[in-house]
């Protein structure tokens, strides 16, 4: 019987396998950041353990770092300590660190691919749930907690019960690919299968709607696999994948021979079986806007907010969840999405802060000013993205429109640094989670694509970007 891409990667990384028991899996790349690693390094010290493969471990700081002027000291003492702790840990254990002033600093899931550290067919872990992003390159990329971070640091392996393969086919062609983006595809998927729809699975995204996407767009898709509850998401590599990774700073020297073997091996066999299957047709999908407090609570920009009954389709807890969400979001059923006014706009995060995202958003705002009552910021995903964008003059377009142009980091996606919403503020955000308080206590998040966020900034409320000329 044929194997899925996930099963092929899995089988080639088994160190120990026993019946009815988790397998010990070898890890090819371990990405480390400042928030989920300190206790893991403490654990190593307590037990006199070394990092087994410092050469396969890469660190940066992203969650906590200020996105303002980095020549100034960090005001938040606890953030400063966490950053210094990572510096010390990397020095003590011999790990390569892209520190706060490195030109390679950035969100860990943006820099991995940009530097050629993320490779097809590899296993990648990081103490961050959005590690699934790297699956866009045909890697098996898993988010882990701090105990597992310690386990991987010590052994370069982890125990894992084999997840089930889940095929999601994205079929058809978008009529306006500038207005209907990868973000809208993945939000549509989550809206349909639910936030628990992928629990215990590894999603493989397939079909014309996926192969048409650029690598950066594929990363947006795989990034949000975790929001559907999946352990990871991946996409079989193709010429776009190989081209993207060619000649990066850390691309392996024997790259072309690797490409030959990847072409041969890294695809699901035609007779492979998936435990689950879902198909999304994208010919007619609209830009998506989340209205509630999880990514499944999402509708088309042209729709109105559903009633809890309409949303829940008979599920009592879903109905209660929708009621609570509307209360938290201070929204009423029946309100047209386009009538929702916003206070803040955040273009950033590991979901949507790559160069293409910024290029697309800049087209929307070029020559315009943001609405006077809106505060808006762009936080590039990495310092390299920032530099490339500045070379193209994108910073000027954003600044002239009254956006703030910041340094790279996770920023307002998760509210760990000073970039937060005030209680009651409503934000159009290109990030991945609209949970209560995610962007700051009492803050209200609407998940959208970069072009939708940019258009909301200009108009002060959500608008259907399909009506704009974005070509």
């Amino acid at each position, binding site marked *: 019987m044929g194997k899925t891409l996930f099963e092929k990667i899995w089988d080639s990384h088994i160190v120990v396998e026993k019946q009815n028991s988790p397998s010990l899996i070898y890890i090819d790349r371990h990405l480390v950041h400042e928030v989920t690693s*300190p206790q893991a390094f403490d654990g190593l010290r307590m037990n006199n353990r070394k990092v087994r493969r410092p050469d396969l471990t890469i660190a940066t700081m992203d969650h906590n770092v200020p996105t303002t002027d980095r020549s100034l000291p960090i005001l938040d003492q606890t953030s400063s300590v966490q950053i210094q702790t990572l510096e010390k840990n990397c020095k003590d254990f011999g790990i390569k660190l892209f520190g706060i002033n490195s030109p390679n600093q950035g969100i860990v899931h943006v820099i991995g691919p940009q530097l050629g550290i993320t490779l097809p067919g590899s296993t990648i872990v990081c103490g961050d749930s959005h590690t699934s992003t790297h699956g866009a390159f045909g890697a098996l990329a898993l988010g882990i907690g701090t105990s597992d971070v310690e386990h991987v640091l010590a052994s370069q392996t982890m125990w894992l019960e084999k997840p089930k393969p889940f095929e999601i086919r994205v079929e058809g062609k978008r009529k306006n690919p500038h207005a209907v983006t990868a973000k809208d595809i993945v939000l549509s998927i989550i809206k349909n299968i639910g936030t628990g729809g992928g629990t215990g699975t590894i999603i493989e995204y397939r079909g014309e709607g996926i192969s048409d996407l650029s690598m950066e767009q594929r990363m947006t898709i795989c990034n949000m696999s975790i929001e559907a509850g999946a352990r990871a998401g991946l996409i079989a590599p193709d010429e776009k994948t190989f081209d993207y990774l060619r000649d990066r700073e850390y691309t392996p020297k024997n790259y072309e021979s690797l490409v030959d073997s990847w072409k041969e091996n890294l695809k699901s066999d035609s007779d492979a079986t998936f435990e689950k299957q879902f198909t999304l047709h994208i010919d007619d999908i609209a830009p998506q806007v989340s209205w509630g407090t999880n990514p499944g609570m999402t509708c088309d920009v042209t729709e109105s907010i559903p009633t809890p009954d309409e949303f829940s389709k008979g599920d009592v807890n879903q109905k209660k969840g929708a009621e609570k969400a509307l209360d938290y979001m201070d929204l009423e059923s029946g309100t047209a999405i386009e009538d929702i006014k916003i206070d803040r706009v955040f273009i950033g995060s590991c979901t949507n802060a790559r160069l293409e995202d910024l290029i697309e958003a800049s087209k929307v705002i070029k020559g315009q000013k943001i609405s006077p009552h809106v505060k808006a910021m762009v936080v590039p995903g990495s310092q390299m993205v920032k530099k490339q964008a500045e070379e193209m003059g994108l910073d000027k377009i954003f600044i002239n429109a009254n956006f703030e142009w910041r340094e790279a980091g996770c920023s307002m996606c998760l509210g760990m640094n000073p970039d937060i919403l005030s209680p009651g503020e409503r934000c159009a955000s290109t990030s991945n989670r609209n949970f209560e308080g995610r962007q700051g206590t009492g803050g209200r998040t609407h998940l959208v694509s970069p072009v939708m966020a940019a258009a909301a900034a200009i108009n002060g409320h959500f608008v259907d970007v399909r009506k704009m000329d974005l070509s």
Partner: protein
Amino acid sequence: MKGNVIKYDRDNIDTDVIIPGQYLKVHDYAELATHAMEGLDPDFHSKVKEGDFILSGKNFGSGSSREHAPIALSHSGIKAVLALSFARIFYRNSVDGAFLLPIEIGQDAYDGISDGDELDIDISTNEIQNITKNQTYKMKPFSEIIGKIIAAGGLFKYKPDQD
């Protein structure tokens, strides 16, 4: 294992409400515990008692991989979370560090147990006894390996069989 239930009658309790992002810089577990569930229930810290259980719906612990979530609950005194289903990273983190027991329950237990009920949970028989209401429910048994890791007291204390 006896304790009282704090029930959150909803699905999708995420790790951002279990421990909001701004506290991920806190390394002192006792202090972390004072902010547990703050995003959803600001009274949690004042009402939780050592040995209590949390009861909730589907997809408990969805979202971030922060191990701070089970740690904050554990150091608040929570010994087990009973839920219709769990997000997998939260489940794994809970077991890895032996912070708390993630117990999967059925709809009968979810509907039957009210906020404040006293339960007696026996993981050797997979039974949950509701002392307050004099009812008994079955819990989903832990898989063999999870049971062994829990019994050992966490991932780093567990030694795989040499068979």
